């Protein structure tokens, strides 16, 4: 086996894949070959690096050089310069907008400095399609330790002591969940990996499965051994083709190596894994709905109890854990509960992966220790707000989370803190908003999602969310009264209080949290018929500022409905009756002569 002097890690996650990452990978390989460097330089397609804003990414080891926005044509230069001459290609290095300088290696990038990667430890480090790379990264060591040296009770105790809580959103103590399932006796039990990641913009589970599928398989075997289950099922949405592809390879390889199947490692323990596809319904992330979907039933939640641990898949005791939860398990076993529980806050141990999105400079996937503040995440890791605008709010917890503001920025992030300020951890979505965002419109946007994704089983969620959305629409059109706001709040509270599953119990959060934190904005919409951020179309109009207009006709020429009149070098006028508020005139005007009022 060749001993390489250099490794070129090319991101093979879905994002970079979509930006010609595959061609870049192939070009790099070809260049290496053409230069006869096959024995010195290894080119590997890895999982996601997380820094999706600047993909495709190429990382060069051992010097940690971090190239961003690399195109396939850059392969030649990277090999010629970096591999042959040992000089980094400067123009491809990351430029830090805050420090205003190029950062030569990843360790010094603001994006990575405060991150602690446990669940994502192998993403961007190893070739996910090669089990040997996982084994080289201590893969399946935890499984070996559990199967050969530990009793099921000891394994459960380790997970319990680690303080790990479910990463899918609920935050239920994982060890306790395992213990309950282990105590329910049946001829067959099941272990289910919930890979039905449904929050819009969230892709932590997908990244783990794409970048490190074996860690999930390893954890499932450990889980199976701990609770006495010999069958594992991975419920994954069919719209994750790359993750499914890599999972299938991983399962085949693990079976080939005897790490799945009968008598694993001579322990006498049998365990195998099957993949089940979901059609992408958000509610199927709820464990009872997920189980019904796997059974071929309509994807609807049922009342708990019975919990899946009592009566789950096919009526048998079933333990359902999320992908990210599983990704923590092998590390907890190898490094110990004590080590894991030393990270994080009192009641939330370890790290959490977040998908950073919205009006933030560094969009991407990050993993941070629990207890880090929102400020650190947004302004240090995230690199602050795009275009130097003012931070307004951050929505955590996916579509059912709440919008937090300036005053919450120093709140240490953990399960309980987020709940206490009216939001939640959820599966780890984090969407940043700036001064241009209208909070009524934001609440409406999220409700649109929950209306679409409600299964329709219980009345408050089926009809209530629809009504919430309609009420928000009325507010955004300036047709609501303060009494309507009272009704809106009451309705939100009742939906939370009476809905059957987590979807409806949290779907009004965006409404309630924006009402709590941005009440003035609601009042402006209702009483003054004004949208302070200039977003709600029915409440704004575009006007020509007479003193700035030079009569260049740019606005009139670009207006799609021809509602702007005026001769050359004359003042232009917008016909309000015809204007569709498309913003084209404002974008085209070079003289700041169009204003939103």
């Amino acid at each position, binding site marked *: 086996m060749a001993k390489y002097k250099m490794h070129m890690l090319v991101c093979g996650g879905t994002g970079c894949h979509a930006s010609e990452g595959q061609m870049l990978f192939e070009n790099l390989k070809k260049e290496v070959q053409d230069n006869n460097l096959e024995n010195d330089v290894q080119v590997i397609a890895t999982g996601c690096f997380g820094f999706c804003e600047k993909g495709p990414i190429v990382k060069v080891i051992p010097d940690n050089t971090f190239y961003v926005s690399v195109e396939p044509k850059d392969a030649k230069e990277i090999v010629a310069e970096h591999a042959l001459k040992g000089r980094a290609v400067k123009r491809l290095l990351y430029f830090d907008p805050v420090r205003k300088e190029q950062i030569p290696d990843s360790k010094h990038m603001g994006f990575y400095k405060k991150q602690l990667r446990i669940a994502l430890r192998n993403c961007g480090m190893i070739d996910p399609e090669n089990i040997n790379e996982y084994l080289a990264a201590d893969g399946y060591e935890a499984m070996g330790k559990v199967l050969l040296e530990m009793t099921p009770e000891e394994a459960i105790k380790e997970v319990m002591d680690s303080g790990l809580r479910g990463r899918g959103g609920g935050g239920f103590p994982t060890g306790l969940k395992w213990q309950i399932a282990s105590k329910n006796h049946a001829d067959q039990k099941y272990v289910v990996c919930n890979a039905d990641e449904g929050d819009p913009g969230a892709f932590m589970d997908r990244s783990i499965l794409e970048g490190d599928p074996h860690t999930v398989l390893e954890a499932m075997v450990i889980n199976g051994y701990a609770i006495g289950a010999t069958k594992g099922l991975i419920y994954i949405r069919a719209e994750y083709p790359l993750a499914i592809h890599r999972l299938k390879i991983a399962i085949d390889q693990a079976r080939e190596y005897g790490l799945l199947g009968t008598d694993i490692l001579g322990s006498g323990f049998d365990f195998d894994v099957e993949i089940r596809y979901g059609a992408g319904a958000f509610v199927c992330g709820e464990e009872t709905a997920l189980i019904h979907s796997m059974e071929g039933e309509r994807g609807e939640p049922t*009342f708990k109890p019975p919990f899946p641990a009592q009566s789950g898949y096919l009526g048998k005791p079933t333990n359902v854990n999320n992908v990210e939860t599983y990704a923590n398990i092998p590390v907890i076993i190898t490094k110990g509960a004590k080590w894991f529980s030393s990270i994080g806050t009192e009641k939330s141990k370890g790290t959490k992966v977040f998908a950073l999105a919205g009006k933030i400079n560094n969009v991407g996937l990050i993993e941070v220790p629990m207890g880090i503040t929102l400020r650190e995440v947004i302004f240090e890791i995230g690199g602050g707000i795009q275009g130097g605008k003012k931070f307004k709010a951050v929505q955590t917890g996916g579509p059912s989370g709440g919008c937090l503001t300036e005053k919450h920025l120093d709140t240490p992030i953990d399960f309980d803190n987020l709940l206490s300020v009216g939001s939640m951890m959820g599966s780890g979505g984090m969407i940043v908003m700036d001064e241009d965002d209208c909070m009524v419109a934001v609440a409406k946007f999220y409700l649109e999602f929950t*209306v679409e994704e409600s*299964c*329709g089983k*219980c009345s*408050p969620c089926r009809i209530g*969310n629809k009504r919430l959305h*309609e009420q928000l629409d009325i507010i955004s059109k300036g047709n609501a009264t303060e009494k309507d706001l009272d009704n809106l709040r009451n309705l939100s509270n009742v939906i939370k209080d*009476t809905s*059957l599953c987590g979807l409806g119990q949290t779907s009004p959060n965006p409404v309630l949290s924006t009402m709590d934190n941005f009440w003035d904005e609601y009042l402006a919409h209702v009483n003054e018929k004004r949208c302070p951020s200039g977003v709600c179309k029915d409440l704004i109009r575009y006007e020509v500022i007479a003193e700035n207009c030079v009569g260049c006709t740019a606005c009139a020429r670009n207006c799609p409905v021809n509602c702007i009149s005026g001769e050359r070098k004359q003042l232009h006028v917008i016909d309000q009756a015809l204007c569709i508020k498309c913003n084209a005139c404002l974008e085209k005007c070079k003289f700041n002569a169009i204003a939103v009022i």
Partner: protein
Amino acid sequence: MELIKLTIDNRTVEVEKGTTIFIAAKQLDITIPTLCYMNLKDLNIEHKPGGCRICVVEVEGRRNLAPACATECSEGMVVKTHSVRVLNARRTVLELIISDHPFDCLICAKSGNCDLQDMAVKLGVRDIPFKGEKSTYKPDFSPAIIRDMDKCIMCRRCETMCNDFQTVGVLSGIHRGFEAVVAPAFERDLDHSECTYCGQCVAVCPTAALTEIDHTNQLINDLSDSSKTVVVQTAPAVRAALGEEFGMEPGTLVTGKMVAALRQLGFNFVFDTDFAADLTIMEEGTELLDRLSRHLNGDKEVRLPILTSCCPGWVSFFEYHYPDLLDVPSTARSPQQMFGAIAKTYFAEKQKLNRKDMIVVSIMPCVAKKYECTREEFATDGNPDVDYSISTRELAKLIKSANIDFKALPDEDFDKPLGESTGAAVIFGTTGGVIEAATRTAYELHTGEELEKVDFEALRGFEGIRSATVNFKGLDVNIGIAHGLGNARKLLDDVRAGKSEYHAIEIMACPGGCIGGGGQPLHHGDTSILKARAKAIYAEDEGKTLRKSHLNPDIIKLYDEFLGKPGSELAHKLLHTHYFEKKIKHISMD
């Protein structure tokens, strides 16, 4: 048995472990309102999807409100069923449900008999603060059932009846969120599904999302047409339930009042389906004995058991699901159809009437009978033997609309000759009745001896599947009985597998038989009503002088004057039928 103590509305109650808050509250005479929960105790069906969220209660220490129907009691639990929080939530949820419901109570088929309407009254809803879009769907008019899903509140009771109880599997939830609705697969209409029209969905629907096709207007038109002779027949189960619609106790027999009311409504002849039930026994009993003796004599052509074929829901069910067993059911037509065939031939001849000038109407506890009237094989030159059927509920509405004081009516007798019947015919209305009636006649015909005891208690009861062996003087006849198509399926699967030990099986699609039919007064989940109706049926049987079909003098006369003997060629032409393999109809693309 572990007991649990809890407090509900400051009162302590002790219940068995596993009891829900809803049931525990009942013990304290606290009825928690609900729109979706349904407990059909005698049928072992507890429907508790926890979907309507009307039954929410406050449980101390719990973050959100708990659905009383699905939440099990735990030791020391403190429950409040009417705290301000609960009342506000309950009313808000109801307002939401109503906000997605048509406001057409004035002209709604279920007005005055609607759970949603009652709940709005009970909770005092006076205003709907959330006006918005309503979900709308294409109405579905099948030969028997109307689906108006604009009125569906997603209680899903119909699904439980269709899937769990009947195992027909036509209805299920489709679409998501606000568009979610119960429908046949691919949102086809019932006519393009495997629906048997048993009507159990209609029987449990809390609103008018599922109702029977209304034939009352047509009936009024026909009654007012002096050129038409309108003949009515009434099924046995109707008389045991009709009184409920007029506030009478369940189980009150109203045979005489019903006859009087029908006469007042203007029917030219008021006859009894029971007459045809006696006729059915003659034909079916003869067929049973014939098949039995041929089978015992080693005739391999004859397949046993013989199955009853009175129930049109059941006939559709095996035509869809057991096309390989089409030779197993008796070829005897149902009493409704035998009546129609005789009325439009024998009786028409007697009255010198052209069948085209006759309207034969049936009053049935059933909605599938409406469909049965439309089956092509039950018509001559396009003229149906039975023109149409109206349900017990429709009859009650007609009587009310005619301003007839039903309770004050004197008892009157059926007209002759098609109004004469025996006790054996009356018990057709309840599960086990047909086979008991057949047994009474077959026993005497086979043995030539008179039965000492007419009541076969072993064949009676409410168990979903029952069996008994009746000794025909040295010949043990094994009899099976099932009510509910799910129970029927179990017996049928055994027949298909060649494992069935029975010689004869009676099957009725509805719980309790026809007394629990889809066209009966709504039981609102109280199955004790069905038992009371059954009791009334047996009482009517017991009160009859003649209790064996073959002793009905007008039946004897019918054979003498017209049919010859049971199983004769004419009898076969008029009183027997054959079955077809049914497949879901294709939707035409034009």
